[in-house]
C-alpha cells in the first residue's frame, strides 16, 4: 500500500490531538508503520493547530508535503481554508461546519472568508460537511465533537468499523467510552 497521509486541523482546545491518537491506534491495529506529528506548546491559547498522521509499510518523514494529504479533517472552516492546498487530487475532505473567528476578524481588520464550503466543494469531489457540535450535543456532550468527526472520516476510509471501535477502547478512558462510541456512530451514520 502507498503511504496514507492525514491532516487534522483546527483551533487549540478542539480536541484534534485525541482524534489523531485514535487514528494512530487504528493504524497500529492494522499493522502499519505510523508516525504522527503535532506542534504543541501554544495549543491552549486558541492558535491554529495541526496534527499530521502518516501510515503505511514504512514511513520516514513525519510530515506531509503540500498536495499530498489523502485526507484532511478540518475541525473549523477557516482552518480547512488555510490547509486546503495540502489536499492531493482525488483526496477527501471532512469539514466541521463551525466558525471560530480569529482576533483579526473579531476586531474587524480582516473578514472571515465567504463561501469557504462552496469553494472547497467545487475543488474536491470528495468533500463532506457536517455540524459536528450539534450531533455531539444530541448524543449527550459537546466535548465529543472530535469523535463525531472521526466517525464521519471513518465512513470514507477503507478500515473495518471493528478496528475503530477497538482503537477507541484502547485510547479513551472507560467513563467516557460510551459517549464517544455514540458520538462516533452519529458521525458515521449521518
Amino acid at each position: 500500500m502507498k503511504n496514507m497521509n492525514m491532516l487534522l486541523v483546527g483551533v487549540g482546545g478542539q480536541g484534534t490531538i485525541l482524534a489523531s491518537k485514535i487514528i494512530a491506534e487504528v493504524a497500529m491495529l492494522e499493522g502499519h508503520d505510523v508516525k504522527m506529528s503535532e506542534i504543541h506548546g501554544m495549543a491552549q491559547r486558541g492558535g491554529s493547530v495541526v496534527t499530521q498522521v502518516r501510515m503505511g509499510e514504512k514511513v520516514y518523514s513525519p510530515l506531509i508535503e503540500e498536495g499530498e494529504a489523502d485526507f484532511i479533517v478540518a475541525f473549523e472552516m477557516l482552518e480547512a481554508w488555510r490547509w486546503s492546498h495540502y489536499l492531493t487530487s482525488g483526496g477527501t475532505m471532512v469539514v466541521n461546519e463551525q466558525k471560530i473567528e480569529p482576533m483579526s476578524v473579531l476586531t474587524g481588520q480582516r473578514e472571515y472568508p465567504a463561501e469557504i464550503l462552496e469553494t472547497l466543494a467545487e475543488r474536491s469531489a470528495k468533500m463532506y460537511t457536517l455540524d459536528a457540535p450539534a450531533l455531539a450535543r444530541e448524543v449527550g456532550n459537546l466535548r465529543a465533537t472530535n469523535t463525531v468527526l472521526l466517525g464521519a472520516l471513518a465512513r470514507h476510509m477503507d478500515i473495518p468499523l471493528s478496528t475503530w471501535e477497538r482503537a477507541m477502547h484502547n485510547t479513551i478512558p472507560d467513563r467516557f467510552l460510551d459517549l464517544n462510541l455514540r458520538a462516533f456512530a452519529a458521525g458515521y451514520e449521518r
Partner: protein
Amino acid sequence: MKALLTGNEAVARGAYEFGVSVATAYPGTPSTEILENVAQYPEIRSQWSPNEKVAMEVAIGASVAGARALTAMKHVGVNVAADPLFTASYAGVNGGFLLVSADDPGMHSSQNEQDNRYYAKFAKIPMLEPADSQEAKDFVGLALEVSEQFDVPVMLRMTTRICHSKTLVELMDPQAREVKPYKKDARKYVMMPGNAKVKRVELEKRFAALREYSESTPLNAIEWQDREIGFITSGISYQYVKEAVPQASVLKIGFSWPIPDAKIREFAAGVKQLYVVEETEPYLEEHIQAMGIPVIGKSLFPIAGEMSVSIIRKALGLSVTGPSHPAEDTPVRPPVLCPGCPHRGVFYALNQLRLHVTGDIGCYTLGALPPLNAMDTTICMGASIPMALGFEKANPELAEKTVAVIGDSTFLHSGVTGLMDVVYNHGTSTVLILDNDITAMTGHQENPSTGKTIDRKPAPRVDIPALCAAVGVKRVFTVDPFDMAALRELIKQEVAVREPSVIIAKRPCALIIRHDGTIYRIDHDKCVGCKMCMRVGCPAISHANKKSTINAALCVGCGVCAQVCKFGAILKEEQ
C-alpha cells in the same frame, strides 16, 4: 511490546529502562514533556528546578554522588546552564550524566533558532542525535554508557520534530537501578587552576579516544545504494533525505561529536556527488569542508528554518507534488491571551498609560500583540528588569515612563538578580510581577512559588513580596489585576516615585481555576458601538454591525470589559 511514543516520551522511557535515578529540568518547549513523563516513574527522583543552571547543577551533583542523572532543557536553556556544563566537562562523572538539549528549528515557540550542536564541540563533550523515538530511547542508554566509559557528560540533541513526533518504540524491562558509592576526589571534582590544568591535558586524550569510538560505533553507518549521489545527514533530516531520494547512498550520523572523519572520507570516496543535509547551521558541512572534501550543503539547502522533503527535492531539481491550488490568503490565527486571563487588565492599563514596557518571556509576551500593543522589548528570560534599569541609566528621564513586566516563574528563574541590581545601583525602576500562580506558557508546570512539586505534592512556597523586600525594595504592593482602577492608579503612582518599587499583580491563571458560572453580556440598546471593549483583546468579544457581542460559551466572567465600557452596556449575568 511496541508503543507509539513522542521523542520526549521515549527519552523518559529510556531514563526508566536505563537506570536513571535523578532527573531535573526547567520547562521549555519543545523539551517540557521529557520531565513530565519521567515524573510518571516513581523509581526516578524528578524535579522542576528554578532555572536550567540549577537543574544542571543538581544533576551534576547527583552524577558525582554516583547516580545516573539526566537534565533536560530547551536550546536557550543550555545558554543559562552553560557555565556548569563547560567545567563539568573537565571534572567528568561518577554515575552517567546526560544533558538533553531540545532545539527548535523553525522557531515554533522560541525566541531564536540557535543550533546547539556547537555546544558539544565547544564544551568538548560527545553528542548523539536521534532520528526517531526508538533511537531517542536507545540513545539514552548508549549515552549513559559512553558517559561512564569515557568519564564525560554527554549531550543528546533533539529537535522539535523528534520531540513531538510519535513513532513506534519497542519497550523493554528496566535494568537494575544502582547508585555507585561516592568517593571524595578533590583532584577530580575541585576545578581550581592546578587541578583544571591537569584535566585540560586529559581532555585531549579523552577526545582522541572518543574519536575512535565515533569511527567504530554503529550509530554512524553507511547505507550503500546508488553511488551517483550520497548524503551525509543526521537527526530528522535523515528521514527527509530517505524519503526525498530513496535510492541514494546515505551516511547517517547518529554520534555527531566527535565527527567520524575516516568514515566520512570512506563515504566521500565512494560516491560521485556528495551532499550534506542538516537543519539550520552548517555544522557538519564546515567540518567536512575543513577536511578538504568537496561537499554541497548550505549553498543549496536553506540555513534558516526547518528542512523538508520538498525543500530537498526542489533544491536538487527533482519534481514535487506541490500545492493542489495556490494557498489561500487566510487570516492568521496566532495564540492569544485566553478569556479571563489575569494578564489582560495589566496590559490594558499599560497601553492606556502609554508607558515603555521592557518585557519578558511567558504568556504575557502576548501583551505585545494588537490590540494591547503594550510591550517594547523581549530578549530572554529575566531581561525585563535589568533592561528597565538600562533605560534609566541611558536616559534618566525614561525612568518615569518605563516599567518592567515579568511572570512569577520567570522572576524566580532569573529576575531576582536583576531586581538586586536595581536596588544596589540606585535605580528607581518599577517592576510588575504578574503572579498567576503557575508556569503557564509551557503548559502549567509548578514552580517554587506555587506550593507544589512536579508530582503535585505539597512544597514550601517562596514568598515573593518578602523576597523583594529582602532584596531591599521598600515599596512592594500586591494588587488584583481585575481591579482595574486600583491597578492603574498604583502603576501611575509608582512610576512617579524616585525609588525602586514592585507591584505584584496576583491572580491565578484562568485555566487552573474552576469557572464559577458568572458571565457578562452586552445590552445592545446601550451599546453605542465605540469599540472600547475591543481594545482589551478578548477572544470572547466580537464586533459586527456597530455592536459588540460576548460569546457566552467563551466568557468566564472576569469583568475587565465591563470596567472599560463607558456606557454601562456590559452587564453581569449570574447563571
